[in-house]
């Protein structure tokens, strides 16, 4: 399945990606499978979205899908069909952390 991924600006700069990322991801399409595929294609992203060792989401990273915050969902929950069909992107967002 081809999944669209939106990276935050700093990670687009790091990867050299312009615009969205399109990735072939093996089913089942979950946060884990999407991020595994993303890090396999762009190894420099390892540690920037998830902790390298535990693979837990970094505290100031959020995952938005179809207008909903999926950050606290299980990484193995199936993502909505709109993501698996490519109709909607999997959005990786730098959380608001100002003051």
């Amino acid at each position, binding site marked *: 399945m081809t999944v669209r991924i939106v990276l*935050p600006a*700093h*990670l687009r700069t*790091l990867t050299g990606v312009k615009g969205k990322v399109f990735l072939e991801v093996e089913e089942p399409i979950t946060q884990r499978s999407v991020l595994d595929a993303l890090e396999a294609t762009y190894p*420099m992203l*390892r*540690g*920037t*979205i998830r*902790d*390298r*060792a535990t693979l837990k989401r*970094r505290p*100031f*990273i959020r995952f938005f899908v179809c207008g909903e915050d999926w950050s606290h969902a299980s990484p193995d929950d199936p993502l909505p069909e709109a993501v698996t069909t490519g109709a909607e992107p999997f959005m990786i967002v*730098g*959380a608001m*952390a100002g003051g």
Partner: protein
Amino acid sequence: MSNVRVLVGTRKGAFILTSDEKREQWDVSGPHFGGWEIYHLKGSAVNPNRIYVSQSSGWFGQLLQRSDDGGQTWEPVSNDFAYQGNPGTHQWYDGTQHPWEFNRVWHLEPSPTDPETIYAGVEDAALFRSGDGGQSWQELPGLRSVKGNLWQPGAGGMCLHTIILDPNNPNRIFVAISAAGAFRTDDGGETWQSINRGLKSDFELPDPDADVGHCVHNIAMHPSQPDVLFMQKHWDVMRTDNAGEEWQEVSGNLPTDFGFPIAVHAHEPETIYVVPIKSDSEHYPPEGKLRVYRSRTGGNEWEALTNGLPQSNCYVNILRDAMAVDTLDSCGIYFGTTDGHVYASFDSGDTWSPIISNLPRVMSVEVQVVP
């Protein structure tokens, strides 16, 4: 004719200033990695066009970047800093034990002889080595076995911020850790010992003979005297003449002996520089006067250097890695401030002027002389 390259790490990116030997006109490139905290960047003495950068962010964590063309282009190298084995715990602010957790790279120290070898000092405090130009990192865990369970973070975090490689003895390395102290290995990093005898920390450590727990801010060495180290401690400026076996206070007539950086003149091994800061709770120069102090006697006798520095209403700080010297015949001294100036002197400190202003908070300054 040589060029001089000043590598400036700031809170919001890295800047590279380049000049010829006259050091009159500076070309500025940057920000590199704009928006990221650059705790430190440093070039290899063996291959000056190889520059390593510690790039971090509260959002995206730690990255390491490397350039092989003097900072024109960069490539990410490994950010995999995994403690060896089960790192266990260290002391936490409330006296309980807290797991060792990697947070960031504070300092990068390339080998003086091998461009592929580089050391990284990290928070939570540990020393890592790479033998492949940063493509992989291995911890030297013997350091943490020197009462690491008693180390505890200071206000800035439990960071290993100073790495000094003995130029004559590849097996000897000195490191310093905030709120833990100074340490030395004589076997290439396998085993370590604390070297804190003579340090007094009356306000932080009730035990006058405490082996660890001293808040060392920075250490400097001149390569011609590798057994002589100069230390800016939390309070006190110190020196040792026997590689840390015993330290003596050399604060002398300084107006205050609190501060962060310390540097040694490139050609005068007993000429040292500090920037006194009012106190541990007021991190700015006393009386609002930015003064570098120079000792030409290896400490104790200090003179204020003020020519060209703001002498009223100046309330900046100079962080521990934000002072460096170049090796040109007329030694240049450089330091960066928390309000984004980099000041330089090309006459050993007699006169100063800013070589760049209005940068973000300066975290580190390093200088290269490039053939």
